[in-house]
């Protein structure tokens, strides 16, 4: 809607350009500049301070030779698969239940969503307390004569990641429910009428008609949840500090530790570049799907 006529392109629409300076600076300096900086210096031998001493893929080969990093990748994969699977199943089921024109809809929705307002720090600390082997839920189960010892998730290096999953699900399912609910409400009620006339049972309608129609909502939710999973950091710090040992270490924490605690900048930068690539692998199919949708 810029008014044409004045020949000097740079001066045209000057106020709008001045107003867009913060955005342009953010895009050029932060999102492009800082990212390139990180990728660039991940190929150097930087320790405490960045240096221009190039070492090729040394940092990367050291990274993937480090059992702590590989453990953190494995943890992230386990956490990610579990959270994604259950957050979608539970979130969708809750949305379907709430969508049955129930009474107290607002109350239920409020209860399912409120954990999302809380920080991961608060979430982690609460669940650390509930899962405390000495005084929390395991003790209660023990007192009741149930096998509570096996529930000491936090102390066992094989199960600690599932404790994080439980806390992560508690915090995040509400968001997915809200998104799914918005998606369900966006579907034309004629579809339901038609399905009922044809005598299709409700569960089949959901499975074969409604869910395929909600593809857009599912993809958006997937991108939001997945990019959150890749960054997961606060929850681990608050709940387990990455322990026992490195049994609940995650990439974001590995990066922080090598950059700011262990003065091994090159390692931290290489690790964060791997995180960036991971996100791109998630994002590119989504971007392509969006693009295709818009064209058709």
């Amino acid at each position, binding site marked *: 809607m*810029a008014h044409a006529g004045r020949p000097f392109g740079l001066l045209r*629409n000057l*106020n*709008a350009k001045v*107003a*867009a300076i*913060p*955005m*342009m600076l953010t*895009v050029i300096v*932060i*999102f492009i*500049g*800082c*990212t390139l*900086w*990180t990728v660039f210096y991940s190929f150097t031998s930087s320790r405490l301070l*960045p240096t221009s001493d190039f070492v090729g893929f040394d940092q990367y080969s050291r990274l993937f030779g480090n059992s702590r990093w590989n453990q953190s990748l494995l943890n992230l994969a386990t956490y990610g698969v579990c959270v994604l699977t259950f957050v979608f199943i539970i979130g969708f089921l809750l949305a379907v*239940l*709430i969508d*049955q*024109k129930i*009474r107290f809809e607002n109350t*239920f*929705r*409020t209860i399912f*969503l*409120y954990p999302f*307002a*809380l*920080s*991961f*720090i*608060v979430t982690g600390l*609460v669940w650390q*307390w509930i899962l*405390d082997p000495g*005084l929390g*839920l395991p003790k*209660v189960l023990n007192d009741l004569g149930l096998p509570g010892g096996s529930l000491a998730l936090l102390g066992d290096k094989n199960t600690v990641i599932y404790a994080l999953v439980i806390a992560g699900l*508690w915090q995040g399912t*509400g968001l997915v429910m*809200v*998104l799914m609910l918005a998606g369900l409400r966006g579907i034309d009620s004629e579809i339901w009428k038609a399905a009922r006339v044809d005598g299709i049972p409700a569960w089949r309608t959901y499975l074969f008609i409604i869910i395929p129609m909600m593809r857009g909502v599912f993809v958006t*939710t997937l*991108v*939001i949840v997945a*990019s959150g999973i890749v*960054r997961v*950091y*606060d929850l681990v710090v*608050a709940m387990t*500090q990455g322990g026992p040992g490195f049994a609940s270490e995650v990439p974001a924490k590995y*990066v922080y530790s090598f950059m700011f605690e262990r003065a091994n900048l090159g390692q*931290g*930068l290489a*690790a964060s*570049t791997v*995180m960036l690539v991971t996100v791109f692998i998630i*994002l590119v199919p989504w971007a392509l799907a969006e693009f295709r949708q818009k064209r058709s």
Partner: protein
Amino acid sequence: MAMATTTNSIASVVEPAGARPRRMFAPSTIILYSILTVAALYYLLPLYVMVVTSLKDMTEIRMGNIFAPPVQITFEPWVKAWSQACTGLDCSGISVGFWKSVKITIPSVIISVAIASVNGYGLSYWRFKGSEVFFTILLFGAFIPYQVMLYPLVIIMRELGIFSTIWAVVLVHTIFGMPINTLLFRNYFASLPPELFKAARVDGAGFWQVFFRIMLPMSLPIFVVSMIIQITGIWNDFLFGVIFAGNQNFPMTVQLNNIVNAVQGVKEYNVNMAATLLTGAVPLIVYFVSGRLFVRGIAAGAVKG
């Protein structure tokens, strides 16, 4: 599709007499509400445990189980959490972090919402060559893991001379709040009737006049949504606080983590839970007060980022 249970028989009197869908028999209704109630209890349990624990004294915590209500209610843990709990060597409670969080949140919210609203307005009505490209990269930037940009940002803050101050955190929040909030404002302004803009232009109003006289007065709803997202997001931040604020300015989340996960001393679970509740109080109040707007904000904010 109303339910013909005894609970709403009054409502059913005024209903049209058409055939009801068959699957709304009472047993299925009972199952539906049972599932919802069990799920609700699961989501409420941690909040209940927090509140109950924060009102017990330590002997009661060691004796009883975490689900038992307090035999004798005491508010001492709350007082201690607020004004005496120790973070490292400093023992002046979580109130220090509370005020730091307030000092960080207020300017961050004002600046980031102001910039995002102007951005969104510009991108809707005053597009220039390249503006859409910047916007697209901005949206993609929202998905770059923060870890990728942390170290260069530290250098930038150091060069600007604001590292380890509140202003560094404010600037970082402004930067990372920009994509989602700009998107919200852009979509909102784009949904307004374009005749408003054209009429104002015909009357000779410029960029800022149209913004302040026409657009601002009409955009209260989206301002509220954007502010909810920013307040909760900034209050709940941990990472940026740890890195950019400096020891003297740690926000409440960082202080809370330091109190609870302190290595030395006896773990005072009641004080910890009181501190946790105090830290969660601000976003929870925002959530409960804003109700539907919070939901709308999330749904709107989730459209793309």
